[in-house]
């Protein structure tokens, strides 16, 4: 037996070596290993390798999963995937272990007299359908809601939208992507009229300079960061890290520039000031392809219930814009931003040099921002002024956090104002959706209802009485958490939670449904670069666990919508995807057919004439361009992208005498969001077992705090206690602290503020004021 095991381990090692060699060959064409090494490594395995997009982040790496006897036993990066070219990060390669945690939810649970009782799936689904019906009868359609996520597959989001918007007739559909991507969406819509990046990951292979705006890519997008490092090794590309805190990314970057929280707005304008002043504006590009606008300012932060805001854009000209920039000369903003004049000019040189191709990357730092839409606009301004956009290597690139934040939430449109194609406010868009869904157009209300924060406020007020939560954990992630947890626990509220493990959100549920996870069902995800990827069901789901798609179909049928949900069990994913692609027909957003997605590692929309579109708005690559020019920003009626005049405005809550530190929250490499899956992967849990508060060494000295000491953090909303981390993984600036949010035992969102960007309605998790004391 011992020998047998030893020979098996050797065999597995050979497979591991072979995978690495294949990846090295993809990354370094022509790379050679000694003949003996290759012969030793070559092997034919008995595993059945199947392709899938990774379960975790929005990079969307292609992985190959080794299946043996109905169990997933191995993961490797897919060398055929243009996303990761065979690489894989620590989360991706451990992902299969998350399928086999000891406390998987396998049977439905219904709360009776304060405790959970196991029931059958049929009974649980009957109960959900009848509760939803009764709530509609008693309180109206807008009293029921669904809250999903960017981890919903495309079919999950599609049936949710069809059921709630098309059949029930409420726009109470939201997803946690509101908490991470909404500012990116409104940034795209205001600047270009269409959502999602114009470029793609292949830009990395062409760019000379990468500027990371508040984006700790080394931990959050590790495989893409490996690709950046790779380009530095191969071609001497430069990495510039703009940040409020020293991170692993800062340490690996060529240049790390620290700015004060919220002042990225002023920094971006200062770069534009320099571009104009130095004559680095690409005049002909701007004249042909850009217009100028300004919007309302000083519009508050959404702290009050029922807060409303609608921007009123006004046309301005280049001269007005130039005049506005006068207030952002480097010597004027250096004090505010903490960035030296020299560094501001250096950044402008990087963007302004006509011989350098530049990629900007960002993610939560810019999106979780009370002026999130503005800062997205401002970074686009830099690329538009220099004409560095929509060409290989010149690319403003908004990264996404979740595997299908783009594919499901943004493209299917699982947000209150959205439809799969277009918005509920537009009659033609409603008619288009209603026709495909087979429902009367009057069913789809023309007014959006609640964005995420307001949806939970409505639950608190009693305007919403029924909420179905799928694939997300809002009782860890909502800002100002206590209010929303108390809301969910109120009498006369009915909460359904579909998930794979118990979480603080299942704790507040009236019914818990066990979900099939990732490769236990069939599905599709869409990643940051407009790439849709398909995965088949590879292993059985445990117990009675069922896909979120099928849970909703079952409930829809029980509510009398058999006609609209007449999909067959064996073929429903194919049927749904086919139906969904009808919403996006046309050159601007055509989706790839399923047969293509089954045969390769995804494809990028617009998928036209059998080909992915890598660079949108560039006539050389994008067949939707029709103005006869080199570029066509066809999302806007005049075909021009907008350069926005957006000023610096302060954060709603800044440190003062009593609460004298900034609090920034975020993620860590090892854990996926709230840790409900990755904390059940022993190696990841051991590597990062609990949350902590990072304190600057000088602040720590002053407060007599050492690593491991317990620290009390207090904001106006609550207090929590955490161990200190001084001079370890990340180092915040003086007067700032950082806490990751993955740990349900140390809920940092008890402290955060539910202020949001008035345009995107995305909360700011990066800035509020706290007090720091040794416990």
């Amino acid at each position: 037996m011992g020998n047998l095991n030893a020979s098996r381990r050797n065999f597995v090692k050979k497979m591991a070596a072979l995978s690495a060699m294949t990846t090295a060959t993809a990354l370094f064409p022509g790379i050679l290993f000694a003949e003996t090494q290759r012969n030793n490594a070559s092997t034919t395995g008995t595993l059945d390798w199947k392709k899938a997009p990774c379960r975790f982040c929005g990079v969307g790496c292609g992985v190959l999963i080794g299946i043996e006897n109905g169990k997933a036993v191995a993961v490797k990066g897919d060398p055929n995937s243009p996303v990761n070219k065979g690489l894989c990060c620590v989360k991706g390669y451990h992902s299969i272990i998350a399928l086999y945690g000891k406390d998987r939810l396998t049977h439905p649970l219904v709360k009776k007299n304060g405790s959970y009782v196991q029931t059958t799936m049929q009974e649980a689904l009957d109960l959900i359908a009848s509760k939803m019906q009764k709530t509609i009868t008693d309180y109206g359609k807008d009293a029921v809601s669904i809250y999903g996520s960017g981890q919903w597959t495309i079919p999950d989001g599609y049936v949710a939208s069809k059921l709630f918007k098309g059949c029930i007739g409420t726009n109470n559909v939201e997803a946690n992507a509101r908490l991470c991507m909404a500012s990116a969406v409104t940034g795209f819509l205001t600047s270009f009229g269409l959502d999602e990046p114009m470029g793609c990951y292949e830009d990395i292979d062409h760019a000379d300079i990468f500027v990371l705006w508040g984006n700790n890519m080394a931990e959050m997008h590790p495989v893409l960061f490996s690709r950046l490092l790779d380009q530095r090794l191969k071609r001497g590309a430069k990495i510039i890290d703009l940040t409020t805190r020293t991170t692993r990314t800062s340490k690996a970057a060529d240049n790390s520039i620290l700015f004060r929280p919220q002042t990225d707005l002023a920094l971006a304008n200062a770069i534009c000031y320099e571009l104009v002043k130095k004559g680095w504006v690409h005049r002909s590009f701007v004249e042909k392809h850009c217009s100028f606008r300004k919007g309302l300012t000083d519009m508050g932060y959404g702290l009050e219930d029922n807060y409303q805001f609608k921007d009123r854009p006004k046309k301005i000209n280049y001269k007005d814009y130039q005049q506005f920039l006068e207030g952002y000369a480097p010597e004027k903003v250096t004090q505010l931003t903490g960035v030296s004049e020299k560094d501001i000019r250096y950044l402008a040189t990087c963007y302004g040099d006509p011989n350098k191709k530049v990629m900007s990357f960002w993610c939560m730092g810019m999106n979780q921002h009370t002026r999130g839409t503005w800062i997205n606009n401002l970074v686009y301004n830099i690329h538009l002024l220099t004409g560095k956009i929509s060409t290989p290597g010149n690319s403003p690139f908004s990264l996404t956090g979740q595997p299908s934040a783009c594919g499901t939430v943004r493209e299917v449109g699982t947000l209150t104002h959205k439809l799969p194609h277009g918005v509920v406010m537009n009659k033609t868009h409603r008619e288009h959706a209603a026709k495909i869904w087979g429902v009367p157009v009057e069913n789809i209300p023309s007014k959006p209802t609640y964005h995420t924060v307001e949806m939970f406020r409505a639950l608190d007020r009693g305007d919403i009485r029924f909420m179905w939560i799928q694939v997300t954990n809002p009782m860890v992630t909502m800002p100002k958490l206590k209010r929303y947890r108390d809301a969910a626990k109120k009498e006369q509220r009915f909460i359904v939670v579909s998930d794979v493990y118990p979480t603080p959100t299942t704790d507040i549920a009236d019914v818990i449904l066990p979900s099939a996870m990732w490769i236990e069902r069939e599905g599709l995800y869409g990643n940051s670069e407009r790439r849709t990827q398909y995965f088949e069901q590879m292993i059985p789901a445990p117990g009675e666990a069922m896909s979120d798609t099928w849970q909703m179909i079952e409930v829809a049928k029980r509510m009398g919508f058999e006609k609209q949900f007449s999909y067959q069990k064996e073929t429903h994913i194919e049927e749904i995807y086919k139906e969904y692609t009808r919403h996006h027909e046309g050159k601007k957003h055509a989706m790839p057919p399923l047969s293509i997605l089954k045969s390769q590692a995804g494809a990028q929309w617009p998928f036209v004439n059998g080909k992915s579109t890598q660079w949108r708005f560039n006539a050389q690559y994008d067949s939707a361009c029709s103005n006869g020019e080199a570029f066509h920003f066809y999302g806007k009626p005049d075909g021009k992208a907008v350069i926005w005049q957006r000023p610096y405005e302060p954060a709603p809550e800044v440190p003062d005498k009593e609460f004298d530190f900034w609090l920034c929250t975020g993620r860590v490499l090892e854990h996926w969001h709230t840790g409900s899956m990755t904390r059940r992967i022993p190696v990841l849990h051991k590597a990062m077992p609990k949350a902590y508060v990072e304190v600057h060494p000088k602040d720590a000295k002053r407060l007599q705090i050492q690593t491991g000491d317990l620290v009390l953090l207090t904001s106006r909303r609550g207090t929590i206690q955490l161990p200190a981390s001084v001079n370890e993984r990340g180092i915040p600036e003086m007067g700032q602290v950082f806490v990751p949010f993955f740990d349900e035992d140390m809920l940092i969102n008890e402290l955060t503020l539910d202020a949001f960007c008035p345009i995107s309605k995305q909360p700011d998790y990066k800035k509020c004021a706290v007090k720091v004391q040794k416990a």
Partner: protein
Amino acid sequence: MPITSYLAHPVEGQQQKLLEELLSISHCEALPAVNTELLILITDTRNAGEEASLKIQLESLENLKHLAMVAGFQTPINS
């Protein structure tokens, strides 16, 4: 019983030194490329704890510039 493979990028000019360092660590096997500064690293540990502490040890190597993970195998393959 994790077996993992990585691409290990040495600090410029230090491929040989890195190879020696890696070979001296238990649970590690390393294969150098012959025409590129890159090594393939295979780690074979008994449990998650051992794997985590090995990761810390690897991160402290002076001649290692960057480690990129490629494949991971979790359980022995059944016959």
